[in-house]
């Protein structure tokens, strides 16, 4: 009985830490969508690119914090390039932009295989986060996963602060509600777009380095990450950072519980949640009302 409870709690923690990672990826995705109405399907390859760059930085410097920052910057540069070179040329043409990001992700995923090969890498975890910690009821649990949870909460808090307490956040929120009015008020909307594109890609790059430390980096991860981001934002509601958090928790828990109790059907639960939410609220749990 006690073992059952311990197992249950461990699975719950696993679900929450996975949710933390999903939140990091999906928050950038949903932010970009909310403001620009661009479904950036290249988000997965930005994640993977950040992870690979972070891995190389870690190999070279053994500095994990630096790897995260450089990985994030690499992601941001990639995201900016895509935005400036492609997406900003077709404003308002959502379908065309989406298709263009698909093309970009096909090219980028292939070039990354050319550069880093088909091997699976893992970014070394710094000593300070290595090992495990004894928790009440659960027993020993990896410190790194707990740190991941804390990190996601921290990023979520910073995003909330940025969106609700800064001028940029104010502009972003206004842009989500009514882009034209924001432009009429004298804001340089394209500049805000650039900032958000960079921010969203930065978050994806950072998530890549963290995901590359917690899990592994290999070709195909981009698709997995893209799927989880898609489901998380569909469930949580496009454009809502709070929704991304709730969606990430639901999907993370469903995936881990599915994996622990009915191993072959892990994906099905994730999917069932998505279908259930769509049936009841097509705009997602926290999406703007249709």
């Amino acid at each position: 009985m006690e073992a059952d409870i311990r197992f249950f709690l461990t699975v719950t923690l696993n679900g929450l830490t996975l949710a933390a990672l999903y939140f990091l990826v999906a928050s950038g995705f949903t932010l970009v969508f909310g403001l620009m109405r661009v479904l950036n399907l290249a988000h997965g390859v930005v994640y993977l690119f950040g992870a690979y760059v972070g891995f190389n930085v870690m190999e070279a410097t053994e500095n994990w914090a630096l790897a995260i920052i450089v990985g994030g910057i690499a992601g941001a540069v990639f995201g900016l390039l895509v935005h400036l070179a492609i997406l900003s040329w077709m404003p308002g043409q959502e379908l065309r932009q989406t298709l263009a990001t698909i093309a970009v992700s096909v090219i980028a995923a292939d070039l990354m295989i050319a550069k880093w090969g088909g091997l699976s890498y893992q970014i070394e975890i710094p000593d300070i986060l290595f090992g495990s910690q004894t928790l009440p009821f659960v027993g020993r649990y990896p410190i790194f996963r707990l740190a991941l949870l804390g990190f996601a909460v921290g990023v979520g808090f910073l995003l909330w602060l940025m969106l609700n307490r800064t001028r940029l956040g104010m502009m972003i929120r206004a842009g989500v509600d009514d882009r034209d009015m924001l432009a009429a008020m004298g804001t340089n909307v394209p500049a805000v777009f650039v900032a958000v594109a960079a921010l969203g890609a930065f978050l994806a790059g950072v998530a890549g380095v963290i995901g590359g430390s917690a899990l592994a980096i290999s070709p195909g991860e981009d698709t997995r990450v893209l799927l989880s981001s898609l489901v998380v934002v569909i469930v949580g509601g496009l454009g809502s950072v709070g929704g991304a958090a709730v969606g990430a928790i639901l999907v993370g828990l469903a995936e881990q519980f599915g994996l622990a109790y009915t191993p072959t059907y892990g994906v099905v639960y994730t999917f069932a949640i998505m279908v259930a939410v769509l049936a009841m609220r097509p705009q997602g749990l926290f999406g703007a009302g249709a």
Partner: protein
Amino acid sequence: MTGSLSPKWTGTAFLAALVLFPLFATPFWIVQIGAQTMILGIIALSLVWLAGYGGMVSMAQLVTAGLASYVVAYFGVQSDPALGLRLPWGLNIVLAIAAGTAFGIAVGMIAVRCFGIYMIMITLAIAVAFFYLARQNMGFFNAYNGFHGIRAPALFGLNLRDPIAFYYLCLLCGVTLFGFVVAAARTPFGLALQGIRDNPRRMQSLGYNVAVHRVLAFGIAGFIAAIGGVLRVWYAGSVSPGSVGVGSSISILMIAILGGMTHPIGAFVGALLFNLIQNFAIDFIDRERFNTMIGIILLAIILFMPSGLVGIADRLRQDDKRGDRPPRQTAPNAGKKSPNIREGNHP
């Protein structure tokens, strides 16, 4: 006069060329290029039908075909003795097509309330989830291994494994389904579907049941894709998670974009181009970098030649704005009447 005659003559000449083609082609051209183009074209046709006439871009068409392939394998003869049911010949094909149609309807029911890019997102999620399910599930999908040793049947003294016979089978299916789509678009149902594509709210207020039309369109697309899936598993001889991966789903979208989604013929033109690139790219670049090249071609088409695409893109853009708020920014040509799809020119 010539306007109405010339596409017809072009079409006849084109068809004659397709029928006579095996007489002077090598088996490589007959099967690798000819049959495979037809198979990919049929699966892409299901997408073109949905996108061109229904304004719904579905990323789940390849997995619909994939499901049909799996059904053919599971209920038919394949090499793993421990798995599957060896039903009498023919039954598995009926089951496969029924399963594909039902799956199409199910996808339609899930996605019916979504428009434009939301539709892409949800069908993409379905496609990716299907891939992971196929890779994890042992009971029906045989997980990583999939099924092998699936062969086209021999019937009435005609061995469908023979390259020429198989090519004609694919050609027959492709031409029939092409004609079916063209004809379906002219039925009251097809016209209502196009009306819904252009203005769902107006059709709703005219008394049309928008949701039912959209779901049925998905069912028809599932039927078309399922036939493509049956042919595909006979062509490949095997089906595994790799054949329903995201890359393959994207390939189908690429084919539709390459060919253009404004006319059903675009699916086959796109498939031929894609197939030729896939087979002959190795002559120009390293085979490993095929995806880079096809991606660049795709990007170039999206950026510089959106003519096939823009009509649909504009239409979907209007769909996106449907209802939730007044149109904000309207591109100069967004309100322009869309080109009449049924009179689109043959290439």
